[in-house]
């Protein structure tokens, strides 16, 4: 609709308030002008209201969740032998869809690389992401995180022929330590193995390939991924005991600033991880990690 017209335009055009019209007006024109202002004012008020509509409503209206995941991060998100996208995070995203929309299949997956995971939600393309993302305080400024859905930590996989026996052995110029290209990985390499040669690849698949092809002798990765890599190559690789740094957690991440959406997703995650749907979460966890998840409560409920 036209909200204004030029001074040269006809002020009597039906339904069009003339903001810049000539000054001489009849009573009817004044009323019309007032109505015009009211329409304009209401639209101004409505505009921010529209912008503040939660993405939660959009998801419910769309009746489908758009989730950003990775396909090169086994066992969390990867393509299986049948060519299908699967993994712990992919399946957990389905559980979120089940809780939100009543159907685990109401999900559209958006596959990204390591560097594409944050832009995928910040650009608004995906509603949320489950991409083996560790929550860190410095990331909390630009992203909204839920309660972690799994413990995580950074472990190191080494080649059996490398002669590296402990995390301390990594700080040696003869060591080439590889990882996916993320700031946390770079910082850890500098902190724990400043003397080693450090290389950062597009994703864990490429970093693991560098280890396998003998380009590197050590590889730092999320614990789950590290265990998986060793399980795939038990003859060539082994896991170093201990973690690089503290235990942390992998979380669902969203574009910040949308409280209703964050609250809903965070509640759903908590309900799975330690609440009313713990049994479904435990089943999924056992399936992908072959072990028990942390207990629902650390104390006994009487």
């Amino acid at each position, binding site marked *: 609709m036209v909200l204004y017209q030029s001074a040269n335009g006809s002020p009597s055009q039906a339904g069009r308030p003339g903001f810049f019209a000539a000054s001489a007006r009849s009573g009817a024109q004044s009323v019309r002008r007032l109505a015009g202002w009211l329409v304009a004012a209401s639209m101004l008020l409505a505009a921010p209201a529209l912008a503040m509509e939660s993405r939660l409503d959009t998801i419910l209206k769309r009746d489908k969740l758009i989730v950003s995941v990775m396909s090169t991060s086994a066992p969390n998100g990867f393509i299986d032998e049948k060519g299908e996208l699967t993994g712990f995070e992919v399946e957990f995203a389905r559980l979120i869809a089940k809780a939100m929309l009543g159907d685990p299949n109401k999900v559209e997956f958006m596959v990204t690389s390591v560097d594409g995971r944050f832009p995928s939600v*910040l650009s608004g393309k995906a509603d949320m992401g489950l991409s083996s993302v560790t929550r860190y305080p410095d990331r909390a400024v630009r992203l909204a995180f839920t309660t972690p859905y799994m413990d995580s930590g950074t472990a190191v996989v080494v080649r059996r022929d490398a002669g590296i026996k402990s995390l301390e052995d990594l700080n040696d110029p003869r060591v080439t330590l590889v990882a996916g290209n993320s700031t946390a990985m770079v910082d850890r390499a500098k902190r724990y193995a400043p003397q080693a040669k450090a290389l950062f*690849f597009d994703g864990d698949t490429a970093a693991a390939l560098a280890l396998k092809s003998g380009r590197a002798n050590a590889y730092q990765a999320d614990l789950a991924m590290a265990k998986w890599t060793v399980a795939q190559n038990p003859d060539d690789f082994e896991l170093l005991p201990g973690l690089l740094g503290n235990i942390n957690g992998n979380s669902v991440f969203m574009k910040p600033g949308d409280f209703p959406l964050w609250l809903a997703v965070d509640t759903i995650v908590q309900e799975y991880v330690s609440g009313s749907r713990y049994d479904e979460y435990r089943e999924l966890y056992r399936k992908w990690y072959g072990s028990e998840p942390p207990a629902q409560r650390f104390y006994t409920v009487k």
Partner: protein
Amino acid sequence: MFDLAFMMRNLPYLQEGLLVTLQLVALSITGALTGGALVAACTLSRWRVLNGLGRVYIEVMRNTPVLVQIAILYFGLPSIGLYPSAVLSAVLALSMQNSAYIGEIYRAAIQSVSIRQTESALALGMTSWAAFRHVVLPQASRRMFPPLGSQAIFIIKDTSIASTIAVAELTHTGKLMLDRSGAPYEVFLMIALLYLLLTSSVFLLVKGLEHRFPVKA
């Protein structure tokens, strides 16, 4: 939402990556120009074997993605005991692929000079090398500048593929900055502007060369 101050503040941190990119560009362009001369020497040769080899090389190199070639060199060669460094793998792949294209540019430019000019030069008593050096090449080289310029631009852009094998060039550095800041628009825009700066300086260089050595009708 767009944070100009963020860009100004973080631009200096892309410097190291930019230097590595410049290094990749310089080495790859040199490699491709030299390799291209060898390829053109083969395809223009009268010896059928050499000619065939040149054609096969061009088809194989042009028709496989440079990303795959880099992966073969970097991840594949270790299985036969060769460990070219990441930078060397990237430079080799870019040089090999682009020498195929550039070989064709050389050949087309040389063949575009009328055969009668060579015949006239030979009739005047020039040796065939002198005819090539003093009659054909000066005319052909002027016609090469525009296509060589676009090829150089392709090389500059393709150096970003080296980020996949952990070469800390411009794109790699930018992706890391993106991971730390979570500011995709600002970071990618900065990277794009720096590539644009590199490619437009090549464009200006080629324009200058074209102006200095015009093609005479």
